[in-house]
């Protein structure tokens, strides 16, 4: 099966019912995408399908009909996406395991809602679990990223 991941076309030989999460991690070697629960309860596996943030653990390979963007495609050390810049500036991460998913969810939110309120942030981000409790910094970083992106 043919996939476009982070702008690159990839050929994958796997079952159609294999979750995209495991295709990305174990076949394509994109380890920024994380396994946390496997049942769409934690959001650690969040990627974009087109412009939509989805749980890759619940997205079957045969249903992937749009380009996939993972955290590796959003930005990288030295060339950070504005959301990642805000995450670094606000020192959000503790263990960091959930942060790929948090960042992908937050970037999708800001693409649709450039200046979200706290309530909109809560609504968009409540599917992303953080056991370390980085929520206060996540809120602050999203507001900062929104301001930075508005300023261009």
């Amino acid at each position, binding site marked *: 099966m043919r996939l476009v991941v982070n702008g690159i076309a990839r050929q994958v030989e796997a079952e159609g019912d294999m979750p995209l999460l495991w295709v990305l991690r174990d076949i394509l070697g994109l380890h920024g995408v994380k396994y946390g629960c496997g*049942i769409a309860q934690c959001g650690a596996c969040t990627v974009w399908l087109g412009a939509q943030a989805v749980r890759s653990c619940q997205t079957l390979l045969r249903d992937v009909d749009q380009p996939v963007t993972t955290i590796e495609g959003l*930005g990288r050390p030295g060339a950070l996406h504005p959301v990642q810049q805000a995450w670094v500036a606000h*020192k959000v991460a503790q*263990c960091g395991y959930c942060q790929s998913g948090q960042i992908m969810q937050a970037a999708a939110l800001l693409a649709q809602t450039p200046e979200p309120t706290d309530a909109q942030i809560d609504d968009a981000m409540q599917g992303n679990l953080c056991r370390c409790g980085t929520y206060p910094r996540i809120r602050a970083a999203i507001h900062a990223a929104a301001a930075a992106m508005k300023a261009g």
Partner: protein
Amino acid sequence: MARSAKIARRSFLIGSALVAGGLAFGYWRFVTPGPNPLRVGLGPDQATLNPYVILAPGGVTVIAPRAAMGQGAQSALAMLLAEEMDLDWETLRVIHGPPSDVYYNGAATAEALPFAPTDHSLLARGAREAGQVAAKFLGLQLTGGSSSIPDGFDKMRRAGAAARAVLLQAAARRTGLQPEVLKTAGSAVILPDGTRLRYVDLIPEARSIAPPQDPPLKPREAWRLIGRRVLRKGIEARSTGTERYGIDMVLPGMVFATVRRNPHLGAGVRRLDMSKAAAARGVHKVMPVRGGYAVVADNTWRAFQAADLVQVDWAPATYPADSAAMFAEVAGSFTEARRDSRLKDEGDVEAALSAPGAEVIEAEYRAPYLAHAPLEPMNATAWLRDGALTIWAGCQVPLYAASAAARAAGIPADRVSLHVLPMGGSFGRRLEDDFIAQAAEVAAAMPGVPVKMTWSREEDMTHDFCRPLAMARGRGRVGRGRIEALDLAIAAPSTTASQMGRLGLPSMGPDTAIVAGAWDQPLAIEALRITGYRVPEMAPVSSWRSVGASVNGFFHEGFIDELLQAAGADPLQARLRMITDAPSRKVLEAVGEMSSWGAPLPAGWGRGLAFTLSFGVPVAEVVDVEQTDQGLSIRRAFVAADLGVVVDPVTTQSQMQGGLIWGLGHAMGAEITFARGAIEQRNFDSYPFLRISQCPEIHTRALEVGDRVHGIGEPCVPPAAPALAAAIFRATGKRLREMPFSRQVDFA
């Protein structure tokens, strides 16, 4: 002190008999510094100045030999060393380094001693010293107990100062100048004319200079890094998906495994039919392992799928089958035969409570089992090559884990090397090495092939070593606006005995964890008695963030709030009157000021206060809740703590926020229950945790009042649940005496 010395001696005797091979013990190790493990594999162009510093042409590497699990200890330890060595923070690299008994944790045993953290008597200080000796004997390289900073505060600074002294001498040799005229800054020696000699350019001279044993340390007023808001190491990697956790390990020709063990914890396997799984697509091997079976496949998902195809008949559990029977066992443990400790017994409690006309207030409290459930499920990668086993895994006890892996693989311990990787949370879970032994067992059956073993979330949650369930029975009397008598009895299984048992070590004497956070509080009450009762082990239990204090903070402060309510006393003013410790008083005053204590709240709101001193850190928390149409909403929280010294203010604030959230989130809705011998909760849908939409606005203040430095990974957990319960009581009139609170109230 005699008791602690006895613990040290016995632990040493048994430990040395148990842990063979690579962990050789001897008296010499206590009197001489251990060898520098960094000399192994050092390049010809590199130098190691002591077990904490490597110089290479590419830069300076600092060894921070504690687990990176999100608590930020590695970065803070590196700050301590960098302060004294005058390293450039931006360019230095921090690694965990090789497991070694040189990196023993001398502060890890302090919390287990029968002395309150506020006890500075000769006897208490002697016991803490004895704990250091025991840790050194045992080669106890352990991350936990909020001990990384207290253990490393002097060690890391001395290592940095010694390394700096070597480099000054190296520069003096190079230039012919006297060391006294040289300065250091930004990872370089500065000559009187301003010329910079980079540390890494001094490697040839530095290699042959012995570091001083007892270098002087900077006075506090000269610190330029400690206490500064620096960018914590690892932040950029953790914001770009480029941090490599254990679960991300990749090796050439690697295969992917998963393990399923008997959900009746600790029990064996009666019958196993692996034929269907063995025939599944992509499966390389299905094999029995201790207490279960492993499936090895060409990717993790196929291993998970095939593991479901194995037909298995599990042996039954050896403990009570369900939570009701387990709580019955706890309730039946308040007996003389099971009395474990009475570390606090002041005044005449019996007389105070049986005096004619005394109105005795009684209450019973409960706390459930809880899982650690770090977001990264347990995993380990193991590779057996030419009789030597290499392991990559997240781990809090690397030397013990390496021994366990050696036993599981059937090879000598000196043939195992373990690389400790960053962890997606741990909260105490990786103080256990069960998953590392499993990976070793599987790898030993596939010589030459690297095996990455990953648990499913369901396997992780149903095979945790939980925080024990517990109960408390309180009796008290109030009068004249204060608490006149308090008698608190706590019953719980012993985490220490359960953990030591798995290490093959006996546990001696009472387990302070059963009463921690209750017996050792700096409160003066005329008649005060705290008694611990030990419940039989039942399901295996372990240390869970803040350990005994995580339940006892709730029991003790919850009941005190009830008594103060009955006495008609203000929760803050009454505590300020009872408090006996100066730093504790300061945090109470701070939280009062931060929260504008006493100012009116909006209608429908309730405010609760709680205070717990644990791991040497007094913490006061105020929580505000609002009763809304959707349920209770936690609106604001205020946290004040005294650390003595705040090494890393950014991480300190994160831990204060995270500790509070951890305490609130579990108290609200989390519990582990048993049915038919197995844990019922299998994933985050049935084991909920606080979401961002439930997260209050949090205000923190870290004080530097006390004269000893402390860690902050755990102490902010215990007061959260009782502060929330007190707030809910004030908002609703409902007194919550059982966690999780969602059994009795609804949260928005």
